[in-house]
């Protein structure tokens, strides 16, 4: 499921980097808050463990073929979602650098597709609630199977969306989806079986190693992070979904220009204008807020999400820049 650099455009890569960086930032903070220096070496060794076990062939009964382990769900079940996520980033980076599996530009996509879903959705929404009360073999198997299948399906769906947003393939989205999802259903089932076999063994041998077993969910108040999370989802929703219904009529400025000049877009010609226009045409990845060579609703929707991400990044960047200069001024004073 590793995305290659060639399959994405810079806008999609940047957006996915931003999303993965946000998740990584939260994870770093959570791991730091645990203040357990022992965890760092454990994360390193576990990362190497996942890397090594990915090379083992597991025979799939009755098929004659073999399957492999991805490890996101297993890591989270042992290290917890935050440490597991950071470990998976390390594994994916080493894979990308040393084995050309994935790419540097596509790393953000790969972290999101393979680590985010496995670690956060798998661990927080499936593993933890199921392990809250009495842990049984059946529960571990069910949580592993559901977690692996669901998170791999989500990852495969994201791959399709990222490829669609990049516009590199002529393959219709539905056909691509119909190819990716069933393959990853089988892969997820195999991964689930391997993960459950290992976790059942660990539960029998050293149950204290499993994360979230017997933990009661704390009654958290409506925190700032939750609020930011909800706002981010709402922003993506507004950008992505509501942009489908965006008005095709001219905005206030365009309306005024049309009244004054008789046209909504003023055109200028000449050396410098042509040069700048040609550079802009080549670098604009979302001309008129739609994907290049795409008039589809999906294009408009993705443009909205990308636009929202860019605006947020710009705001954060400007705020840091402002903070930096303010700091300098205070020092001078």
């Amino acid at each position, binding site marked *: 499921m590793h995305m*290659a650099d060639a399959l994405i455009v810079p806008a999609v890569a940047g957006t996915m980097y931003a999303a993965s960086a946000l998740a990584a930032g939260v994870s770093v903070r959570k791991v730091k808050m645990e203040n357990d220096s022992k965890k760092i070496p454990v994360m390193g060794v576990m990362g190497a463990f996942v890397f090594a076990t990915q090379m083992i062939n597991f025979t799939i009964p009755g098929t004659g073929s073999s399957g492999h382990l991805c490890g996101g769900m297993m890591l989270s079940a042992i290290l917890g979602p935050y440490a597991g996520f950071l470990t998976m980033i390390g594994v994916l980076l080493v894979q990308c650098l040393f084995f050309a599996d994935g790419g540097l530009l596509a790393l953000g996509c790969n972290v999101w597709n393979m680590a985010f879903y496995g670690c956060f959705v798998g661990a927080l929404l499936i593993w933890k609630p199921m392990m809250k009360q009495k842990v049984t073999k059946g529960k571990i198997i069910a949580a592993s199977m559901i977690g692996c299948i669901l998170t791999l399906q989500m990852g495969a769906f994201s791959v399709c969306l990222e490829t669609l947003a990049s516009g590199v393939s002529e393959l219709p989205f539905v056909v691509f989806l119909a190819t990716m999802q069933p393959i990853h259903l089988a892969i997820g089932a195999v991964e689930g079986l391997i993960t459950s076999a290992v976790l059942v063994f660990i539960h029998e041998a050293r149950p204290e190693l499993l994360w979230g077993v017997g933990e009661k969910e704390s009654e958290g108040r409506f925190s700032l992070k939750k609020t930011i999370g909800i706002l981010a989802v709402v922003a993506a929703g507004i950008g992505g979904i509501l942009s489908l219904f965006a008005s095709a009529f001219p905005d206030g400025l365009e309306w005024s220009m049309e009244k004054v000049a008789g046209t909504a877009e003023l055109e200028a010609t000449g050396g410098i204008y042509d040069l700048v226009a040609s550079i802009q045409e080549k670098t604009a990845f979302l001309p008129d807020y739609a994907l290049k060579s795409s008039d589809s609703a999906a294009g408009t929707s993705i443009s909205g999400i990308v636009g929202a991400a860019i605006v947020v990044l710009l705001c954060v960047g400007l705020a840091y820049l402002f903070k930096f200069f303010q700091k300098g001024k205070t020092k001078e004073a």
Partner: protein
Amino acid sequence: MSKFNQAIYEIQNLDTISKEDKWVNHIHPLIKLFLTVYYIGLVVSFQKYDLEGLCGMCIYPIFVFIIGELSWKEAIYRLRIVLPLVCIVGILNPFFDTNSIAEIGGIAISGGVVSMVTLMIKGIFCILAGYLLIATTSIEEICYGLRKIHIPKIMVTQILLIYRYIFLLLWETKRITQAYALRAPGQKGIHIKAWGPLVGQLLLRSMDRAQEVYESMCIRGFQGEFFIRKRNEKVKGEFIYFIAFLIILLICRIYPIFEVIGGFFL
């Protein structure tokens, strides 16, 4: 060569060549990291029919391969993992995009064929750029560069630790699977009954090893922070190399350089 031996060889080989005493190996890791990401970003930003412009981007890998005295064979071997995926995605383009956009020797070339070739070349260039980075920069230097751009210590530390322990765990996993294969001759892979105990034992051993590692690190004064050696080396001309490639690659991105140069002679 078995899968484990192959993986160990590939990592060790890259580690060795990245530490060789060559000019390009001594350039600041951040310059190489930034140039690689910049190059890949420019390569993937080409439009699907802009094959001519894309070809101009070959100058960067060619130049670095030559000055770094790197093996093309090793680099091409790395294409085996990602290129099939890129080909699968691109191979159907000729069937869906049948509009003729060019003609060579009376044969009409459809847009799908051009976009397929463009996608494949993009894939090749991106993989080569990644190889050039890791073949000329050690993982310690990359981590140093990552720290310089304020990637959290915790992440950089565990990347280094993963790298350190990969060899060890690959050897251990190889020993376990070899022992299993000797007891189950002719069997392809690990039987379902052994999945749990085999991987579980390896996991438990890894956890115990992590505990030992932690204790050894504590004895040596580890307090949750892993220090990376500061880099004092300054290479002559590295800044010119950086600026020159920033400009050259941007020019290649904006203008179809091959066409422009060819125009002078025709």
